């Protein structure tokens, strides 16, 4: 089985580039040249160097003694939270800013949910000396305030988006509209494995460094390159794509994708796309989509801004359809509990998004000799207000 894109930009029946003509020039330019650029020696070298010296890679693979005891198995945490800017998002923005420079673009736009992608974009733009505009849903501007301040300090302009559900989906719409209005000088740094081809593949390649490192690190620590489980949360799916990438063709590695169930999958306030969605088209690709019978996109809900999205990347839709990955979901409550648990047992405060992956540990029956890798996609600084409100409530 091949889980990568075919030569037309599809993962099985998912993917493609369903874009208005106004985006054709930019998207076809990317399609035509992204592989050549990514494969060039100068790009590879620059990318690798920045990941090392600037982002602080490789991120550690940490054996969690206490989680392992609790779940009676062997649990490793992939510490993407220790990257510069505090999440996996920097892997992709470093790659895309190098690409944008090679394309001669001078203005960068991005969408952001949790603000992690916005911060990671603002960061690389500051370094590259490029103008940066970040679209962020008005609700997310409020619930991820520290990241908004960071983006501003880094010199980016944050534009709150008031349309629709005022979250990630709408921020993405607004970024697309910006690109339509500024096609010549602007590159759009999409923050996840979503959007028209080649974005899903390109972002997955930039994030694939996560699983590339896991293989090497596991080998050193256990003598085995492959774990029994890789667990990651899925908003659009970029950290999961990166954590799964080099294990896709190892059928013995169980890939666990964890979606946000919000207040419960069937509560009407959820973002569990694979359970609630059908094939549909949003933001330029065919994938699974939460929608009404008439094809209107349903506004999702999750306490975690980074998972509050009504779709998933086409690669994941295909992993779901082919059953290569197992999709679970964790509620707000389960994620909050898991975040508190990791904080108090290991001294690591995870991002709310990553806490969804941790919550899945409760849902799986591990064998005592299993090797389990959980991707800690980011750190929890941005979520402190949400955490404090919740923990005061349960005290």
């Amino acid at each position, binding site marked *: 089985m091949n889980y990568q894109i075919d030569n037309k930009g599809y993962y099985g029946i998912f993917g493609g580039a369903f874009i208005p003509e106004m985006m054709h020039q930019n998207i076809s330019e990317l399609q035509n040249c992204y592989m050549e650029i990514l494969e060039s020696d100068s790009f590879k070298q620059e990318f690798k160097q920045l990941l090392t010296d600037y982002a602080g890679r490789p991120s550690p693979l940490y054996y969690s003694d206490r989680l392992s005891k609790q779940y009676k198995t062997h649990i490793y945490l992939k510490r993407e939270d220790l990257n510069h800017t505090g999440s996996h998002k920097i892997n992709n923005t470093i790659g895309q800013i190098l690409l944008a420079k090679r394309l001669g673009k001078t203005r960068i736009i991005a969408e952001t949910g949790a603000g992690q992608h916005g911060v990671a974009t603002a960061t690389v733009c500051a370094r590259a000396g490029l103008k940066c505009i970040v679209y962020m849903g008005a609700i997310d501007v409020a619930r991820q305030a520290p990241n908004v301040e960071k983006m501003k300090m880094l010199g980016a302009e944050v534009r709150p988006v008031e349309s629709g559900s005022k979250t990630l989906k709408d921020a993405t719409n607004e970024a697309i509209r910006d690109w339509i209005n500024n*096609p010549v000088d602007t590159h759009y740094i999409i923050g996840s494995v979503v959007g028209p081809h080649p974005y899903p593949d390109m972002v997955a390649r930039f994030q694939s460094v996560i699983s590339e490192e896991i293989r090497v690190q596991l080998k050193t620590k256990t003598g085995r390159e492959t774990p029994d489980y890789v667990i990651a949360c899925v908003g659009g799916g970029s950290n999961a794509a990166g954590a799964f990438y080099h294990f896709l063709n190892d059928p013995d590695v169980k890939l666990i994708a964890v979606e946000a169930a919000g207040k419960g999958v069937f509560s009407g306030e959820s973002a569990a796309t694979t359970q609630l969605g059908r094939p549909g088209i949003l933001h330029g690709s065919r994938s699974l989509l939460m929608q009404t019978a*008439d094809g209107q996109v349903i506004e999702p809900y999750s306490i975690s801004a980074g998972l509050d999205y009504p779709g998933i990347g086409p690669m994941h839709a295909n992993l779901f359809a082919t059953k290569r990955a197992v999709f679970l979901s964790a509620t707000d409550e389960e994620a909050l509990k898991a975040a508190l648990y990791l904080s108090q047992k290991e001294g690591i405060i995870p991002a709310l998004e990553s806490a969804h992956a941790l919550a899945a540990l409760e849902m799986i029956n591990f064998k005592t000799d299993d090797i389990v890798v959980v991707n800690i996609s980011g750190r929890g600084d941005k979520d402190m207000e949400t955490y404090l409100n919740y923990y005061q409530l349960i005290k």
Partner: protein
Amino acid sequence: MENRLTTLFTRKEKNILSIYFTAGFPNLNDTVTIIKELERNGADLIEIGIPFSDPVADGPVIQHSSEMALKNGMTIRVLFEQLKGIRRSVSIPLILMGYLNPVMQYGIDDFCRKCSEIGIDGTIIPDLPLEVYQEEYKEIFEKNSLSNIFLITPQTDDERIRKIDALSNGFIYMVSSSSTTGAKGSVDKEQITYFERVQSLRLNSRRLIGFGISDKTTFERASTFANGAIIGSAFINAIEGEISIEEKVNAFMQKFVKTSII
């Protein structure tokens, strides 16, 4: 292939006035009234918008009308129901314009068949790419005498314009500038360069210019570079408000009557 659209273009060469509105706005059941009033007031063709929750190619005005229309309960099913007997009273070409997802969920085959039953002459689906249309949809559209209309923009190179020309059997929708719908402004030098570039290609298809056409002046100016022009956001703005929908459509159209009658 022949339909009311192709007939219109053999009959009329210049100053073709096309009006876009979002079905279900300002009120759910205004659709048929708006169409009749537009025809009575001299519109040459009408683009009926199917609202979508995430209209990425649209500016604030059409975003707003789409949101209101959805709140009012507009769906493809409701629209088809409203348009059922439209050909008893309306004879100008009618085009449906909407994003791909709602059409896909309705079912492409059923959608095309229903369009043909009602007497719809064409479609504009901005996020349906040329290549996908060609491979998967062309046959079924043409079987139902539907002209699918493609957009070109200042970014579209000559080779691609020729490809689009060859695939078009209605008209080519020339997006006037690099923008979403509703951009304001006059016709500037850069646009004229683009309009003249397209003119010089001597295409087979008729061309209508859209996006940013807001009044008689911009309409007339744009019409000198093509077979006519399309008005969307300006019309939507004009039909929101308290007075009756007939009066609002009339008042707006009076400003164009002189130019749209040869």
